């Protein structure tokens, strides 16, 4: 096979694969702009009304805010637990380090739907904790493994003697941490935040059972909405969410070379 033939074969395979992976998004963007009252592709005419309608649907507004709050505060809480844990696992010779690592990583392995059901049955029902609080804790636990892993890997490159030097020069241990360690792992912490945010925001199975009157995360709300309505607004909302994720990932890549950490 000569070179140009091989080039052609190469790009046609890649073209087909990428069409399969990315094509659906282009379709969704257009489907959300269809001027029909029902979902149609190719659209007969284009309109922005469904994109605008998304913002006026009351339940979307409420569930978007809930998902945002869960993603931001759940990830922050996970970092609050995860950064010290990652630090300890790297800097101390802990007796049960492997056990701690496995326990903290467990939420990744256990399918989310089971976690949601378990929390509903054995936490929300018997103790009367609100669904919102259960959601917050579930999302925190879900993001925790990513926080520990990403922060850990950015800490392995940081030599411990820098910190020891800071202590010898008169810093307290806490000061050594905030002045030497933290600035050096800032990129990792930010990357962990972004990864955690995206994971939490897109999460469905965990939240499936953890919903109550007026309390629904955005993806769950979309599932409920598409069961009763067949207009293009879910397509429009899907396209907007895709743009939001892309914007976050691109900004992160530009600012800190996000992909290094993931």
């Amino acid at each position, binding site marked *: 096979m000569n070179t140009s033939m091989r080039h052609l074969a190469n790009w046609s395979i890649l073209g087909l694969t990428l069409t399969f992976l990315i094509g659906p998004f282009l379709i*969704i963007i257009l489907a959300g702009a269809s001027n029909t009252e029902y979902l149609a592709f190719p659209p007969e005419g284009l309109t922005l009304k469904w994109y605008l309608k998304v913002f006026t649907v009351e339940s979307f507004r409420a569930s978007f805010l809930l998902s945002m709050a869960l993603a931001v505060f759940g990830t922050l809480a996970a970092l609050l637990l995860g950064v010290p844990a990652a630090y300890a696992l790297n800097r101390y010779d802990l007796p049960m380090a492997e056990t701690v690592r496995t326990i903290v990583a467990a939420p990744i392995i256990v399918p989310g739907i089971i976690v949601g059901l378990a929390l509903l049955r054995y936490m929300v029902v018997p103790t009367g904790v609100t669904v919102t609080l259960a959601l917050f*804790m579930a999302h925190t636990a879900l993001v925790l493994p990513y926080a520990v892993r990403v922060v850990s890997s950015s800490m392995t490159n940081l030599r411990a003697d820098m910190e020891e030097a800071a202590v010898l020069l008169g810093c307290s241990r806490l000061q050594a941490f905030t002045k030497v360690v933290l600035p050096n792992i800032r990129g990792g912490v930010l990357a962990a935040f972004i990864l955690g945010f995206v994971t939490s925001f897109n999460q469905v199975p965990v939240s499936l059972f953890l919903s109550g009157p007026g309390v629904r995360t955005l993806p769950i709300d979309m599932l409920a909405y598409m069961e009763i309505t067949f207009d293009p607004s879910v397509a429009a909302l899907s396209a907007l969410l895709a743009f939001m994720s892309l914007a976050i990932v691109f900004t992160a890549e530009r600012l800190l070379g996000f992909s290094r950490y993931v």
Partner: protein
Amino acid sequence: MFRNTREGLALALPAAIFSTLLFLVPVAILLSEAFRGTSGGWSLQGYIDFFSTPLNRTVFLRTLKLGALVAGTAAVIGYAAAFCIVNLGPKSRGKVFGMVVLPLMISPVARTYAWIVILGRTGIVNEAITGLGLSDTPLRLLFTETAVFLGLLQLFLPLMIISLVSAMENIPRDVIPAARVLGASWIEVFFKVILPLTKEGLVIGGTLVFTGALTAYITPAILGGSKVLMLETLLYQRVNVSNDFVSASVIAMILIVMSFSANLLLKRIATARN
């Protein structure tokens, strides 16, 4: 390395305790539910009942079948795509690789919903079929195993490609040309050179795709509905429609055992490599 163990534990334990209380304990109680006999004591009756229902057996086998099919297809496409990506120049390689990874960051609801637009009654495929006069009425493409298969494949293919690309990058550059010069056909090159050298990546990608497909909820829910139930959607139905927590517990155990064994396998590969 600091020596003060107590200090270290004080930093690490909050995370571990949090995970234990929120994850391990509730999940363990849930899993124990299927073993609790009606008259107290322990029994396997929950499992026997579950598997003696034909619908449950169908769903169980379908989930395994779709998982294997998706993983197998992803492997075939993945090898072709990964081979092409590795052969690109460094600049376009990064771009193409980025386009493969990007979908992973996007909401699975959005990714799955696109298939409704493609396969729905007024979707692109049906418009084409009726437009060409191949059929007078739109075909039912949604709520079929094919729809679920396509949705899962699109969702998890990137994981396979990523694993295979990093496996192929480790093949020494001259090995494939050398095999060709020595007279191996492309088929022989694949089975005697590429496959043995990328076995690890294939296993990693395969487990990720298989467990992903096994534990996906959104895709079977949106594209399969109650016509094409998979274990996850069956679990949801058992809880929300029939309040049957014993079945839910059995399904949970099946899912956890599969996903745990897959992870053990991955861990063993990782340690074997080190």
